[in-house]
């Protein structure tokens, strides 16, 4: 059994650790809330952009051939995946989950040679260790990302797609469901799928703009629908990346919050266990001393 002083020292250090983890938990909680708010703030724009996109598509009777960014390719040879992780660890299974989901996805679809654009140090390091092809990495994203932080990666993806270097671009991020649940998600970024999400989006539209949406109205287009699509579609891609990053940030912080909460709990248990041991050891020592004294006294009494 360890000495009293040793146990005392351990109790102290565990208490210190629990203070640190509690502080980290608080910080993560407030950062999570901010990221969530930010993600919500871009929603009006997203809803409007969808509305206009579907509107333009409706004018033309279909979206497929309207613009290169909307055109599906028959054979998919090269794929690019934007993988969003965090720079820092200590966030539970957050980074592990999304990286595992991504590698599984790559294996299932035969995209082992997919080019990866990684956001966050953890994803880059893990993917490099697995020997994957990382063509670009972005680290040190600010805690409140701005659109200008997104442009470079959006550029890479859109240019690569238009040049034919990639036939599909996916984005892998962690969807924030609630504080306890974050889901690793992979979805197709390019070509943009207008039809697929329409139903879901109509519901959202109704919710947001129940006012005079007169879709039959004849619009004037300046300069023309094709050029307008050329402006809107890249924005749309940027927007999706931006939202994915915000969702991921919110997920990262909530994962960290939960991890730190557990750590604090564990530290508390450890402290109470150690305190119990400490008391036992102390009591043992006292008993031993008493026995010594009593034994000594008895010996003296017998001698006299």
């Amino acid at each position, binding site marked *: 059994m360890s000495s009293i002083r040793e146990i005392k020292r351990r109790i102290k250090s565990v208490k210190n650790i629990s203070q640190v983890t509690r502080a980290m938990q608080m910080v993560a909680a407030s950062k999570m809330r901010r990221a969530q708010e930010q993600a919500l703030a871009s929603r009006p724009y997203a809803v409007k952009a969808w509305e*206009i996109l579907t509107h333009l598509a409706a004018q033309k009777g279909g979206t497929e051939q309207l613009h290169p960014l909307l055109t599906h390719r028959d054979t998919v040879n090269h794929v690019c995946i934007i993988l969003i992780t965090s720079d820092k660890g200590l966030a539970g299974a957050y980074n592990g989950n999304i990286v595992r989901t991504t590698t599984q996805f790559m294996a299932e679809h035969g995209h082992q040679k997919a080019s990866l654009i990684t956001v966050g140090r953890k994803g880059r390091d893990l993917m490099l260790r697995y020997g994957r092809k990382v063509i670009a990495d972005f680290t040190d994203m600010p805690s409140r990302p701005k*659109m200008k932080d997104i442009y470079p990666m959006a550029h890479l993806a859109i240019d690569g797609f238009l040049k034919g270097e990639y036939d599909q671009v996916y984005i892998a991020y962690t969807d924030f469901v609630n504080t306890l649940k974050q889901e690793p998600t992979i979805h197709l970024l390019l070509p943009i799928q207008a039809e697929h999400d329409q139903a879901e989006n109509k519901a959202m539209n109704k919710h947001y703009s129940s006012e*005079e949406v007169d879709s039959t109205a004849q619009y004037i287009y300046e300069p023309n629908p094709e050029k307008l699509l050329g402006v809107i579609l890249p924005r749309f891609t940027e*927007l999706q990346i931006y939202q994915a990053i915000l969702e991921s940030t919110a997920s990262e912080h909530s994962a960290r919050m939960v991890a730190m909460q557990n750590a604090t709990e564990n530290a508390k248990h450890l402290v109470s266990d150690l305190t119990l041991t400490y008391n036992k050891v102390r009591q043992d020592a006292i008993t031993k001393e008493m026995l010594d004294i009593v034994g000594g006294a008895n010996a003296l009494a017998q001698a006299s």
Partner: protein
Amino acid sequence: MTLRLEILTIEHKLFDDQVDMVIAPGTEGLLGILPRHTPLLTGLTFGELQIKQEGQEDQYFAIGGGFMEVRPHHVIVMADSAERSEEIDVSQAQEARQRAEELLAKGNSQDTAEAETAFKRSQMRLKVANQRRLKRK
């Protein structure tokens, strides 16, 4: 009669109110929009957006491209970037312009397009900010 104007960027909603008139920098030229305008969808370019509200001083925004949807009583501006004239940091904009100018002078072909955009943007921001200051005097 008024029309509702919304100014949205991807990051946030900047403005949402009833106004009397909007003057916006369309790709095909300046557009003045009054209530009951015919439905219109247009691209926007770098420039300033002016808002007229009755009984109030005109408000100015620096717009960095984007697009705009016009309905008879509702105008939605979806800007790549948008700033209120009061919020533009003049010294910062000046610095940005200088940097862009230097880049342009060097003539590195790779950066030229980017520098030009940066130059246009800072130029436009300065213009909008200055206009505001002149008004105040």
